[in-house]
């Protein structure tokens, strides 16, 4: 455990150095937050409540999800740091390190998310709050649930991207699989529109898939869409996806390790 905490801490420090890049990303995320908010405002002018959200909730949803893009990182597709190592074959070394491969990468990813949260999540929320009335959680249990839901969202996102990375290892190239992963994440995470606005069965399906656990669920937790036991259910759903996907990842890792093939000389 000490090892992984050290990995996490050094990952925090490493990623905190890219401050200008993070703030530039936050700026772009904020601009998109405003554009998405205005798209929804025009829609909410036709009805006061759509998909269980009033206008304030809808606007908050936009800035919240734009802010979470950085730390959740599900739109990175795979694990960008590993892409180059897959192409060069360095991943063979990583697979034989005397530390758990998946645990090591999870610790690195959680460490990455810490500075991303400060630099990329707060600015869009603050900018949105300056212009619009945003909805903040009003009960202590929601305030407690929010950090848990966000952390679990990062773990679920990592477990998806880890699987993408493994698939890339088998294909020797990351670009194809991760572009498919990005499409799925864009569509099913709630970044386009809150998932309850999807029509019919598609909306129901989208909310059951793991991508919902990365953005839609933490946003709904924040907005107080879950009350009492529902809140536990939502977090339980995230835990379930994390366990299942990490489990599949572990299983596939052992298989991959047995058929490592190093490219080049």
């Amino acid at each position, binding site marked *: 455990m000490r090892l992984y905490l050290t990995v996490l801490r050094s990952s925090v420090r490493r990623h905190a150095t*890219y401050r*200008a*890049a993070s*703030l*530039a*990303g936050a*700026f*772009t995320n904020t*601009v*998109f937050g405003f*554009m998405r908010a*205005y*798209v929804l*405002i*025009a*829609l909410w*002018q*036709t*009805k006061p409540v*759509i998909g269980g959200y009033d206008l304030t909730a809808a606007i908050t949803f936009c800035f919240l999800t734009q802010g979470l893009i950085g730390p959740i990182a599900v739109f990175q597709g795979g694990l960008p740091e590993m892409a180059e190592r897959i192409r060069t074959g360095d991943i063979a070394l990583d697979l034989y390190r005397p530390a758990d491969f998946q645990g090591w990468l999870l610790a690195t990813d959680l460490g990455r998310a810490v500075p991303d949260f400060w630099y990329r999540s707060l600015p869009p929320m603050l900018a949105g709050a300056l212009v619009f009335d945003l909805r903040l959680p009003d009960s202590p249990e929601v305030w407690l649930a929010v950090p848990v839901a966000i952390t679990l969202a990062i773990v679920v996102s990592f477990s998806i991207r880890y699987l993408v990375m493994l698939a890339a290892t088998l*294909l*020797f*190239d990351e*670009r*194809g*699989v991760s*572009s*498919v992963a*990005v*499409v799925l994440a*864009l*569509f099913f995470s709630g970044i*386009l*529109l809150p998932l309850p*606005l*999807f*029509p019919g069965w598609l909306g129901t399906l989208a909310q059951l898939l793991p991508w919902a656990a990365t953005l839609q669920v933490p946003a709904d937790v924040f907005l107080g869409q879950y009350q009492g036991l529902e809140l536990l259910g939502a977090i339980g759903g995230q835990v379930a996806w994390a366990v299942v996907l990490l489990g599949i990842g572990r299983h596939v890792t052992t298989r991959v390790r047995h058929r490592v093939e190093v490219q080049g000389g």
Partner: protein
Amino acid sequence: MADAVRAYCLLAWTWTRALAQYPASLTMLTVSQLVVTGIDAIVILFIFEHTPTYAGFSLPEVMFLYGTSGVSFAIADATIGSVERLGRHIRAGTFDVILLRPASALVQVAADQFSPRRLGKLVQAAVVLGVALATMDVDWTVGRIAIVPVMILSGTFIFGALWVLGATYQFLAGEAAEVMNAATYGGNFVTQYPLNILGRDAIRALTWVIPLAFVNWLPALYILDQPDPLDLPAPVRFAAPLVALLLCVIAALVWRTGVRHYRSTGS
């Protein structure tokens, strides 16, 4: 100019062959590109599930805006979008090599990592545009028909110029490259919708500061016979080619200044 075009085509073909070494990747990239660019159109469809008109526009009319913006953006992205990687060339020191070669630096950077998958977006946007044109309720006069290709071409040059301006900004702040995505990708996003969903000040900024309103909004007001929320004089609706030309001239001057003042990172 002919040399630049030949150099560009050669580089683009080389990159295409390089990517074809990974056929599974190339297929997935092209398919996902088709879907990813279609996603924004799906959002518009979902919005119209909840309302018959959106900000005073019908579904085919919004799809017309989506299609014109998408076609312009796709052509600009495929041909010149790679300039956004300038920061990486500067950091890695490869920009020095580019400057040494006897071909235009802008062409080399623009053709870098050329990938036919980017044309996937063009196909998808063109299909949506075609359907929108066929289903839109418009009194087609010669003038209105003539404006459509003009706006697409002007839009392409406006996006292309924004890309070059954004890339040049990386001579100053390589790390903060993502800021410019707000103008390029953000510009594509916002021009898919009627601009009157924004406040008046925002529309003013998108007309006179970052002239995205000329990509499709102002010409579309003429084609769709819609009122202008800013009440600008009518000729402004036809000013897109002029604005595109002006922006390209500015972008070329800024790019040259950037290259002239470029100092290698020395690595």
